[in-house]
C-alpha cells in the first residue's frame, strides 16, 4: 500500500483551511493547515510534503515567496496557488514562478481535490 500523501494548506482565511482539511483527509491525504506563511516556511524545513496549496495574497512573505522557498528547500513538493484576486497576469506569474496549477476562488472543493489526486498520481 502506498504511503499516505502529505498536503500543506496555507491560507490566511481560516474558513478555507477548515473546509479543505476534512475534504482532503477523507480521501486519504494527511493534511496540515496554517494561516501564517512563516509557519509553513518553518514546517517545510522540518519535513517534506507532497503538495502545498497556498493562497497568493497574504502578509509577507506572500504566496509566491513561500512557493519559491518551498521549491528551493523541497523541489519535490508540488505547489497549487489559490487566490481570490485572479487575473491572467497573476496566473501567469504563479505558473512561471513554479506552481503546477492555479485555481481562482471561489472554487468547488471537488475541483481542487481532483487536481491534487491527479498531480500526486502522476508520480
Amino acid at each position, binding site marked *: *500500500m502506498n504511503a*499516505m500523501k502529505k498536503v500543506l494548506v496555507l*491560507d490566511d*482565511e*481560516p*474558513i*478555507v483551511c*477548515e*473546509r*479543505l482539511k*476534512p*475534504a482532503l*483527509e*477523507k*480521501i*486519504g491525504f494527511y493534511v496540515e493547515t496554517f494561516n501564517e506563511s512563516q509557519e509553513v516556511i518553518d514546517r517545510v524545513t522540518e519535513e517534506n510534503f507532497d503538495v502545498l496549496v497556498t493562497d497568493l495574497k497574504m502578509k509577507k512573505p506572500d504566496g509566491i515567496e513561500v512557493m519559491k522557498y518551498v521549491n528551493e528547500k523541497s523541489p519535490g513538493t508540488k505547489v497549487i496557488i489559490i487566490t*481570490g*484576486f485572479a487575473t491572467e497576469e497573476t496566473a501567469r506569474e504563479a505558473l512561471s514562478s513554479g506552481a503546477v496549477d492555479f485555481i481562482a*476562488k*471561489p*472554487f*468547488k*472543493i*471537488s475541483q*481542487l481535490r481532483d487536481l491534487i489526486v491527479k498531480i500526486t498520481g502522476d508520480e
Partner: protein
Amino acid sequence: MAFWKQLLRDRGRTRGVEGLKTRLSSFQDLVAKNNRVLELFADAGEKLGGEYVFDIQYLHGLARSLEEEVRGVVQDLEALTGRRNKDLRAAVERVSSEIGAVIDSRVVAPKADYVIDLDAVDADLAEVVGMKMARLGEIRNHLGLRVPDGFVVTTYACRQVLDHAGVTLEMEEAFGGDPSPDPDRLKAVAAALAGRLEDARIPAGVARAIRTGMSRLGRNTRCRKVAVRSSALGEDGDLSFAGKYRTVLGVTAAELTAAYRQVISSLYTHEVMRYRMDRGAHPGRGLMAVGCLCMVRAKAAGVLYTLDPSRVDEKVVVVSAVRGLGKAVVEGVSVADRFVVARDAPYDVLSRDTVVKDQMTVTAREGGLKRIPVPEAQRSEPALSEGELRELVSGAMRIERYMKCAQDIEWAVDTDGRLYFLQARPLRLSPTIEVRQPDLSGVVNRYKVLMRDRGEVACRGIASGRVHIVENDDALGDLPEDAVLVARTSSPRLASAMSRIQAVITDVGTATGHLAAIAREFRVPAIVDTRCATDLLAEGMEVTVDAEENRVYEGRVDELVHSQLLRRSAFEDAAEYRLLRGILGKAAPLNLKDPQSSSFTASNCATYHDIIRYAHEKAVEELSSGRRMNPSRNGRFVRRLELGIPLDLVMIDLGGGFRKRDKGRSVGPGDLTSKPLCALLDGLMTEGVWATGPADMDLDGFMSSATRAAPLSNPLAARVEHNLAIVSESYLNLSLHLGYHFNIVDAHLTDRRDENYIYFRFAGGVTEMARRARRATLLKRILVANDFVVEGRQDLVIGRIKKVPTDVMKNRLRIIGRLVGFTRQLDIHLRDDDALERCVNGFLEGRNSPLDCTGAS
C-alpha cells in the same frame, strides 16, 4: 453587438435622432447591468449549496459588484429620463449600508429591536442574538425540542448601552493604535471600562424594552425568575470563551436590569480581554446579546457530551447529572452521577456510576440561589431514571445530527419530569484528536458502493440509517428515527418529515428545488435527481449516505459518520456562509412585483432586486411613452403595435422596422418589415399559443419560501405591462414582462449566415421553488432540442444560437415566440414531474398550450 453600434452610428447621422440615440444607448446599458445583477444573484445562490470554498474577500467583492451595477442602473435611468431620481438613489444607499452592516457584523451590531422573543430566533439572527441564543432558537423552533421560554436582549441594545455609557469611546481612546498593550496596561483598561459600565445608567429605551419583555414573559408563562445568560458575538463560535462570561441565575423582574448590566460587564474582565487578544482579536471590541430564560424548577440537571472527549473512538454518550440545578456540575465543583449511553436507539445505558448527593442547588424564593440538603431517601438514588436518560440522549442525538458535529449540552428535568435543553455548543476536542482522522479512503473501500455520482447533492452531510421508501402520504406519519427517506419525486410534501429523518434521496428533482431548500433548512443530507434510487435501494436496507462525495454505501460506515462529528463545526455555521445568506437576504428578494400597484414606487424599493426591477420598468415606460422626444423630429420612430392580444408592445424603429403610413401612434402586423420580429410574432400568434382560457388556480404553486412575504396574487390577473421592441429590418431587441416572467430576445437575421444570432433570456419568479426548477428544466430541454446552447442558474435560463442559415433562424424565432406564449401560463400546470414531461413532449410535438399537454381541467 457591433451591429447595434454600427446602426446607432448610421442613424446618428440622420437629423433629429441624436437624443434618441443617446437614450437608446442608456437603455441598452441599463438592460445589460440589470442582467449582470441577476446573474450575480444566481451565482451567489449557487455558493450556498455547500460545494464551494469562498472567503470574506469574495463577499466583499460580491457586495462591491452588486452595488456598482445597481448604481449604474440608476444612472442609466437618470440619463434616459433626464431627471435625477433622489428616492431611488436613497434606496441604493439604504440597501448598500444594510449590506455593509451585514459584512461588518462581527464588530457592528446590525440594527434590530432591543429585545427579540426566543420564538423568533434562529441562526439567521446570529449577529443580533449571538451564536449561543441562535442555536437555542434553532433547537426550539426548528427541531421542536423543549427550551425554556424567554427573550433575548440584542447586540444592538448592547451597542446603545456601551455608547451611552461612554465605554466605546473610552475603549477606543485607551487602545489608540495599539490593540496589544502590556499586561499591566490591559488590566488597568479592563478595570476602568468595567467600572464605567457598572456605574452606568441603561438608556431608557433599552431598559423599557427589557421590562416589557419580562412582564410579557410573566404574563404568558407565569415565569417569575429568569436565568440571565451571555451570548456574545464570537462566543461558542471561533473562540469558545467557555466559562469566561458571567451568568446570573434566579433573577426577578426587579433585579433584571442590574443582572443584565452585570452580565455585559463581563465583556471587560481582564481575563476575557486577555483571551481575545491572545487569539488575535481586538481585546476591547466585543458585543454581547443576553438571553433571559425562565428558570426551570429542576429536580435534576447536568451536562451531556455526545462523544466522550477522552475516548472518542468508543462512540458513546456521556451524561453527568446532579439533583437540583446544574450550576455545580457545569462549574465542575460538585460530584455527579455519570452515565455512559449508546449513541443508537434505543439508547441502552452501558454503565452507571451513582454517587451520594448530599446537597443540591435550588432557586431561593427571594431570588438568587441556595444550597439545601437532598432528602435522605434520594441521596443514593440516580438523579435520572432510565426513561429520562433515553429521552435526553434521543434529543441530544437530534441536536448533534442537526449541528453536524459532536455536542456539549446543558439540560435540566423539572419537578414534573419535563426535559429542557438549556444550551448546546460544539464539543471541544483536543487538537491532537482532531488531527487523528482515520484514513477514510482505506475504510470506505471495504464497503460496497450502491450509488456513485448519481444526481446532484442538494445538502451536504453524512448520515446512516435504514432505507424507507415512501409511496404515499400515510407512510410519513410513522417514520423510525433512523430512516433514510427514499422517494421517486422530490415532492414538497416530504418536507413534513424532514426534521425527523437521517437523509433523503430522490429519483427526480433539482438542487435548487423546494425539497432541496427544506433539506438545507433542516441540514439533512440530501441527494436528488439520481434517476435510480428507488430501483437500487431496497426497503429496510442499512445504508450510509455520503452527500459530500455523492455516494451511497451498503451498511453503516461508522468511521465516515464519525469523522464528521470530530469537526469543529458545520460549514453552515461558518461566519462566511451566514454572511452570504445575509447579503442575499438584503439584495435578492423581489417585493415590487406589480407595476400597476400604488406601492410600486422608488421609495418602496427595499432590495437591489426591487431597484433594478423598478428602474427597468420606468426605462421602458419612458422610451415607449416617447416623452422627451420632439414629435416632429422623433415621433415618426415610435409606434404602438396593435396585435389584438393584450401585449402592449411599443416599437422604436432604427430603420426599416415598420412602415409609417400616417401620423397615427400605432401600426398593425401588416406594417411590420422587421424580419426577426415578424418571425417571432408568427410563433407567438400561432393559434392556441396566446391561450386565454381558464386555468385552474392551484394556489399552492404560488407559495414559496422565497416569496412568502409577498402578497399572494393570481398571476393570470396580473396586468400586462409596457413592453418594448427596438427594431430594424434585420434586428430585434425585445423586452417582455409577461405577468411575473421577464423575457429578453436579442436577434439579428440576415441572408449572411455568419451575422445571424439569437440570444434568449428568461427570468421567472413568484411560483414555489419546485415549480421554478421544473420551469427552468422545461425551457432548457426545449431549447437544447432546438440546437440552442443553454446555460442557467436557478430559475434563470439563457439560450444562444448563432451562425445558422436564414430559414433555420426564422424557424427558431418562431419557436421562441411559441415558447414565450407557452410559458406565460405554465407555472400552475407544473404540479409534478409527470406534468413537466408531458409539457416538454407536448411542446416539441407542436402543442401550443400547457393545458393541451397536461389535460388538466
